[in-house]
């Protein structure tokens, strides 16, 4: 038998007794040098802690400033400048992590796993925009969120998405939110982070799949305003609900609406609802019938969703590395595959019994069955509520932004003739005051 050179050379060196650590076998005792100092291993320092305080302070400041600019100053230009600043700081300087959208998952994980301690910065990023939205509407989306800002900048040739399509696609973020929370709560994956559209741009480099996805979102964003915010963003869903309840929010005109339709025309996000007339009395019984029907349908949809969702445990579990490893080890042990993976090899080296792994995988799958059931019920609830909302025909007299859809970008301010009149008045007043001085 031919012996490779290494054995011959190793034979020269006396083998020392093996130490306990599996990977740190002291086969060759370190020499004791007489006049040679051992170098020290150099480690780059961790990021300074103060940067987190800066982040949270800038977030709070940004939210306050955005709310002021949107509601008090009604300044589109101010919001624009602020959004560029947010894009620069939270995006390009801080590389897009942590963001409020991703923070949903950390909070979900903390709720689902008592062992996990969620960093306070993440909680702050999750809660601050919510609280601001509760009082001022979605000003976070207008000028603080770097993802929103990136899309805001490219929305130059927006077309109108038909209402029906908007309603149908509007379900997507809810589903995404449900899925993201379900997977994060059981600790399987942070799906929302995995498909972050712009983080690759913020870091000036990423896998081509990420770059292509981000590029597509931006390209679509030229023609369809804020596609990620409207049809994917899970945080936008939460902000939308809170915005409905907000104390103050963006109003198009400070005075009487004159029905000129300019604001509706200029809004790239289809967020402005036209006035509606009351339904004719003849139609009312049928409408009421539909309403009651959907009210009854709601629990049915929730139940159906829950049943279907509980069957999602297996497909969802395939996203879990631990379950995937258990599947692989099982397949190897039962002769279903010849090919081992790095993960199964590593597992074999730990000498842990496979049963332990199987049981862990199964308990994870049980958790995922519950999470899937919750997710299914949630989707059922969302669809049912959508139907109920569509069966309502509220009367509206003015052109008004839909509080859930309006991202407070402030484009309509400049276009509203009434607003212009108001501004002129204010400017004159200021001038008068100045001359008086």
């Amino acid at each position, binding site marked *: 038998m031919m012996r490779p050179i290494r054995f011959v050379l190793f034979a020269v060196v006396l083998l020392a007794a093996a130490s306990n650590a599996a990977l740190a076998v002291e086969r060759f005792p370190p020499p004791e040098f007489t006049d040679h100092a051992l170098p020290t291993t150099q480690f780059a320092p961790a990021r300074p802690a103060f940067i987190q305080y800066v982040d949270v302070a800038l977030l709070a400041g940004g939210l306050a400033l955005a709310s002021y600019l949107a509601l008090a100053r009604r300044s589109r230009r101010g919001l624009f400048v602020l959004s560029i600043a947010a894009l620069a700081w939270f995006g390009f300087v801080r590389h897009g992590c942590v963001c409020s959208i991703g923070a949903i998952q950390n909070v979900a994980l903390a709720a689902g796993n008592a062992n996990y301690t969620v960093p306070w910065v993440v909680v702050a990023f999750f809660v601050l925009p919510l609280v601001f939205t509760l009082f001022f509407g979605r000003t976070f989306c207008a000028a603080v969120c770097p993802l929103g800002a990136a899309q805001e900048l490219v929305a130059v040739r927006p077309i109108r998405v038909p209402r029906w399509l908007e309603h149908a696609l509007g379900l997507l973020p809810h589903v995404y939110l449900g899925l993201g929370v379900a997977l994060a709560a059981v600790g399987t994956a942070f799906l929302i982070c995995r498909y972050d559209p712009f983080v690759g741009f913020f870091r000036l480099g990423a896998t081509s799949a990420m770059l292509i996805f981000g590029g597509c979102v931006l390209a679509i964003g030229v023609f369809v305003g804020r596609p990620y915010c409207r049809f994917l963003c899970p945080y936008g869903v939460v902000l939308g609900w809170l915005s409905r309840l907000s104390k103050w929010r963006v109003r198009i005109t400070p005075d009487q609406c004159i029905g000129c339709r300019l604001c509706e025309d200029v809004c790239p996000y289809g967020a402005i609802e036209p006035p509606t007339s009351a339904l004719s009395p003849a139609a009312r019984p049928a409408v009421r019938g539909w309403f009651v029907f959907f009210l009854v349908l709601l629990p049915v949809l929730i139940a159906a969703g829950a049943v279907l969702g509980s069957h999602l445990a297996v497909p969802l579990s395939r996203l879990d590395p631990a379950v995937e490893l258990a599947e692989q080890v099982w397949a190897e042990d039962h002769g279903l595959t010849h090919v081992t993976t*790095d993960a199964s090899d590593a597992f074999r080296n730990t000498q842990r019994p496979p049963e332990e792994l199987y049981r862990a995988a199964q308990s994870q799958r049980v958790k995922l069955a519950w999470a899937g059931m919750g997710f299914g019920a949630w989707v059922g609830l969302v669809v049912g509520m959508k139907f109920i909302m569509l069966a309502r025909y509220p009367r509206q007299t003015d052109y008004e932004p839909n509080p859930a859809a309006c991202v407070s970008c402030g484009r309509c301010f400049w276009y509203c003739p009434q607003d212009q009149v108001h501004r002129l008045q204010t400017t004159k007043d200021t001038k008068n005051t100045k001359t008086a001085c």
Partner: protein
Amino acid sequence: MAEKSPTINRRKFVADGLRVAGAAGLFGAAGLLTMRRGGEPINNLWQIDPNKCVACGNCATHCVLDKSAAVCKHAFRMCGYCNLCTGYFEPEAAELTTGAENVLCPTGAIVRTFVEDPYYEYTIDEPKCIGCAKCVKGCIAFGNGSLYLQIDQDRCMHCNECAIAVACPSEAVRRVTAETPYLPKDGDPES
């Protein structure tokens, strides 16, 4: 109008109260979450546990960064200073010279310097290191295991979900606290 206004005021008051309660609730929940210490400390930096690492090479290919955040570190106190370093040389190297045909590192990031007969010192030229773990594998297999991968906190972007951790076959990538950002193999981060 006069009759309506008390109702409106009351409603407004109730709504405001609810909003304040909601905000208080949100802050309260946030406070609880922040105060609550789970079983773990606040771990918000990613790091490789060298005792679990199997040197599979995924760090080089799965990091979201073009230049992986994982780099090779050398625990000098564990090193045997071998002439035939299996982290430095190809397994079947014909000669122990620094010629490309004998050297394992694809980027030439390991520097071999003579100390005294028969000992050689190996240092990592980190800017060149791509975290491929070839040397780590060789050192674990036949040497003392003094070469190991760590995530350079300077290079790391601190993603919320680390792509290397997802791809790691041995669950070696985990979150650590900012106080202990490195898991050095010989136990001395700074000294």
